[in-house]
C-alpha cells in the first residue's frame, strides 16, 4: 500500500511540474515570446556562472570528504607502488590544471558572452598561431606523462629479482588458493586433467613430479616484509584478477595462460594497523575481473609479517603431498588437517556457498 502512495506522490509531482511548465509557456506567449526568451537567456547565463562556482567548491568539498578514505594518505604498502603514487600525483597536477582552466573558461565565456541587445558576435573563423599553440602544448605535456609513465611501467612489469619469494596463487569460483614451493624452492608441475586425482587435489598438481612433494597448499597468503615477492597467477575456470590495492598491483588470472607480478611489501600487517589507525586492517586480495555470481565475495587475505614469523609459519605448514597421500607422510600419526588456516575464508563462505 505504501508503494501505491509513493507512486501516486511521484506521479503528482510530475503532473505539477508539467502544469507549471505548460503555464509558463502560455505566460511567455502573453508577455511576448521574444521578451521572455531574453529573460530565460539571462537566467541560464547566471546559472552557468553559478554552476561553475558551486561546482568548483563542490569538487574541493568532495576532496575534503573523501581524500582521506582513498589509499593515498597512508602511502603505498609496496616499494614499487610508490612510483605509481608519484605518477598519480604528476598526472593530477597536469590534468587538474587543465581541468580548472578549461572549465573556468567554458562557463565564464558562456556567462560573459551571453546575448545582449546591440551586441555583435566577433567573426573569428580561425587563427593558425592559436591552433598551433594548443596542438603543441598538450603534445609536450603528454610526452612528459608518457615518459614518466613508461619508465615506471617497465620498472614494475620488468623481471622479478632473482631472490624473490615465489608464491603461486590460483583463482577459482569463488576463492583463492596459494601454493608455496617448499624447501626445494621449486613448484611442482601441474596438469589440469589431474584435477581431484587423488580426491582433494583441487589445484591439479602432478604428484608424479617429485618437486611437488614439498609444496604447501594454503588458503591464506603469508609474506615476509621487505623481500621481493613474485606471484605466479593461475585460474582454474574463468578469468579472475588478483587485485592488491594496498600494494598498487593487479594482474589477471587467465585459465591456460599463467601470468606473474612482483612487488616488495614495505609494512607488516601489524604496522599497517597502526599506520591506518584501523585495528581490523587486513591486506585483502580482491577479484577485479567479473567472474560470476560470487565475484564480489572472492576475497583473499595476505598476512605480511617479519621474516622470522614468516619462516615459523612456513614450518608449521604440512606439504599437500602428505595430506593427500597420508601413507607417505613420515609424521602421519598426527592429525591430517589440510592447512592451519582453513577458517580464513569462513566469513565469505557464509555469504556465498560454493556452487
Amino acid at each position, binding site marked *: 500500500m505504501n508503494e501505491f502512495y509513493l507512486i501516486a506522490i511521484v506521479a503528482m509531482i510530475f503532473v505539477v511540474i508539467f502544469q507549471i511548465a505548460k503555464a509558463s509557456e502560455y505566460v511567455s506567449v502573453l508577455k511576448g515570446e521574444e521578451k521572455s526568451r531574453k529573460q530565460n537567456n539571462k537566467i541560464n*547565463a547566471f546559472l552557468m556562472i553559478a554552476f561553475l562556482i558551486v561546482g568548483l567548491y563542490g569538487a574541493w568539498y568532495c576532496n575534503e570528504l573523501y581524500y582521506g578514505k582513498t589509499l593515498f594518505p597512508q602511502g603505498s604498502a609496496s616499494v614499487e607502488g610508490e612510483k605509481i603514487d608519484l605518477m598519480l600525483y604528476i598526472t593530477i597536477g597536469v590534468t587538474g590544471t587543465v581541468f580548472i582552466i578549461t572549465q573556468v573558461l567554458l562557463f565564464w565565456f558562456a556567462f560573459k558572452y551571453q546575448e545582449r541587445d546591440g551586441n555583435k558576435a566577433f567573426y573569428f573563423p580561425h587563427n593558425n598561431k592559436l591552433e598551433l599553440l594548443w596542438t603543441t602544448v598538450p603534445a609536450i605535456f603528454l610526452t612528459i606523462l608518457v615518459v614518466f609513465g613508461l619508465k615506471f611501467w617497465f620498472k614494475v612489469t620488468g623481471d622479478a629479482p632473482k631472490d624473490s619469494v615465489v608464491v603461486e596463487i590460483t583463482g577459482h569460483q569463488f576463492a583463492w588458493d596459494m601454493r608455496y614451493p617448499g624447501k626445494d624452492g621449486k613448484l611442482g608441475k601441474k596438469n589440469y586433467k589431474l584435477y581431484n586425482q587423488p580426491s582433494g587435489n583441487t589445484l591439479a598438481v602432478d604428484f608424479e613430479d617429485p618437486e611437488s612433494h614439498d609444496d604447501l597448499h594454503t588458503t591464506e597468503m603469508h609474506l615476509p616484509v621487505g623481500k621481493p615477492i613474485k606471484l605466479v597467477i593461475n585460474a582454474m575456470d574463468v578469468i579472475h584478477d588478483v587485485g592488491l590495492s594496498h600494494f598498487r598491483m593487479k*594482474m589477471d588470472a587467465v585459465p591456460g595462460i599463467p601470468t606473474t607480478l612482483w612487488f616488495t611489501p614495505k609494512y607488516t600487517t601489524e604496522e599497517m594497523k597502526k599506520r591506518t589507525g584501523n585495528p581490523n586492517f587486513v591486506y585483502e586480495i580482491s577479484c577485479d575481473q567479473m567472474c560470476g555470481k560470487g565475484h564480489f565475495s572472492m576475497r583473499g587475505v595476505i598476512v605480511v609479517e617479519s621474516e622470522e614469523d614468516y619462516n615459523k609459519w612456513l614450518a608449521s605448514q604440512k606439504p599437500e603431498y602428505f595430506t593427500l597421500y597420508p601413507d607417505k607422510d613420515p609424521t602421519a600419526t598426527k592429525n591430517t588437517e589440510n592447512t592451519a588456516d582453513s577458517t580464513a575464508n569462513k566469513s565469505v563462505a557464509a555469504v556465498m556457498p560454493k556452487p
Partner: protein
Amino acid sequence: MSTATLETAAHHEAHHGDHHGDHHHHETFITKYVFSQDHKTIAKQFLVTGIIWAFIGGLFSVIFRLQLADPNATYPWLEDLLGHWAPGGKLQPEFYYALVTMHGTILVFFVLTAGLSGTFANFLIPLQIGARDMASPMLNMLSYWFFFLASVIMMSSLFVQTGPASGGWTIYPPLSALGEASSGSKIGMDLWLVSMAMFIVSSLLGGLNYITTILNMRTKGMSMTRMPLTIWALFFTAVLGVLSFPVLLSGAILLLFDRNLGTSFYLSDIVVAGKILPNEGGSAILFQHLFWFLGHPEVYIILLPAMGMSSEILSVNSRKPIFGYMAMVGSLFAITILAFLVWAHHMFVTGLNPFLGSVFVLLTLLIAVPSAIKVFNWLTTLWRGNIRFTPGMLFAIGFVSLFISGGLTGIFLGNSALDIHLHDTYFVIAHFHIVMGVASFFGMYAGVYHWYPKMFGRYMNNTLSYIHFWVTIIGAYLIFWPMHYEGLAGMPRRYYDFSNWESFKMFGDLNQFISMIALIVFAAQLLFVINFFYSIWKGRKVTEANPWKANTLEWTTPIRPGHGNWPGDIPEVHRWPYDYSKDGKDFIAQDVPVGADESKH
C-alpha cells in the same frame, strides 16, 4: 556522382518538380509510418526505439543502485516485478549481474549507437548535404528492421528462465562460454550473441549507406569542405563502424561455436564446477583483442556524432563560425585513425607483453592531442559570441564540460602504470560514464532539442527542457565525481556488496547518496520523455522555416518536409555553413550566392 545516382536524383527531381510535392504516390499508414523508406521517418523510428531502450536500461541501473545503496534492504515490490530473481524483495547476485550486463549492453549499443547515430545520421545526412534521401532507402529501412529484430531478441532474453547474459557487457569468455560457470551464460548468452549479430548487420547496412550518401549525393556546390561538422562526424562514425563491427561479429561467432559446437577458440585448461573440460589450446585473451578492436572504436562511434552536433549547435547559438573548421575536421580524422590503434589499453593487466603495452600507452595518450584541439576550438567558438541559451545550446555546453572532465581521467587510465592501480575500479566507471555515457547523452539531447522543430514541426516545452538540463548536469556530476575517490581507494567494479571487505566498506554512505541522486536524475529523464511525446502532438507549432537562424540546408526545407525533402529543386550551395556574424550580417545561409562586396575568410 555515379550515373545511377544521378538518374535517381533526376527522377526525384522530375517527380517532385512536377507535383510540387503536394500529392505523392499513394501512401498507406504501413508505408508511411512502419515500413517507411523516408530517411526522416526511419530516423524517428530509431529515436523512439532508442528512447524506449534508454528507459529500460536506465531503470535497470536504478534497480541495481538500490542494491548498492543498502545491500541488506528488501523491496517487496521487486519480487512482484522480477519474480524468482528477487525472492522476498532481495535482489539475487545472478540477477544483479544480469542487470549490470544488460544496462551496459543496452546503453552502449541500443541507445548510444543505434539511438544516437542511427537517428541523426538518418535524419541529418540527406537534409544537410542536400539529398532527397539516402543512397539506398531500401537498405536504410532494412537497417532499422534488423535493429528492431535485434531488439526483440535481446528483449526476449530478459524473460528466459535462466536469465539474460550476466558476464558484463564485455562478455569475456570463458565465463560467457560456459553455462556451468554462470546461469546467465546459458540460453541468455546465445540470445545475446544472436541479437548482437543482427545488430551488427543493422549497423553495417546503415553505415555503408551513410558513407555512400555522403560521398555521392551531395548537392551542387556542396564540396566536402563545405559540409557541416555534423556530417563529417557522422561520416567518420560510419567508417569506424563499417571497419570495426565485422571484427566483433567474428568474435561473437567464434564464441557461439565454442558454446555450441565444441570448438576451443577461447578455451583451454579449464575445470569448471568440478568438471574437467576437454578443450585445449584456445586463448581467452584472443576474445578480448577481437572485442576491443570493436570496443574501442565503439567509444568513438558513440562520441563523434555528439561532437559533431555540439560543434554545429555551439556555432549556431554563439552566432559565430566554429573556430578552426579544418582543425576540427583534422582532429576528427586523427581520432578516427587512432581509435583503431589503441584497443589494447583495455588489456594492460591481462599479462600483455609490457613492450606492446608501452606502444598502446603512446598511441592512447596521443588521442588527447586532437581531443584538446577540439576543446580549445569549442571554447574559442564561445569567446566573444552572442550566446543564446536554447535547450540545445545548454546541452552542447554541458557536453563540452563533461567531455573535458571525462577526457582528462582518460589520461590516468591510458597510462599503463597508473592503470595497474585503477583498472576495473570505480575510477573506470566514473571515467567512461562521464565521457562516453553522459557526454554522448548530452550530445544526443542537444541534437534532439535542436532538430526537434525540423522533425515534428513543433517545439518542446522550454521550461521542462531547462529543468531537464540543470537537474541532469548537476546530478551527473554528483553521481560520478565522487566515484573517482572510490576508485582511488581500489574499490572494484561489479561488486554486489562491499560490506564484507575491510578495504572497501567505508563508502557505504556515499553509495547511498549516489543511488539517491541516480533516482532523481532518472526521474528528470522521464520529464524529457514526457516532454518529447507530448510535444509531438501538443507542442507549440513552428511558424518560421528557420527558427534558429541557422545556415545549414535543412532549414531551407518546408516546416514539415515530405518525402524528398524539397518540394522544388534542391538548393545549390555557395559557401561553408558557418558564415555567422560576417560582414555585419547575423547569418548567411549556405544557399546564398557569394556577394561581390563580401570579405574573404
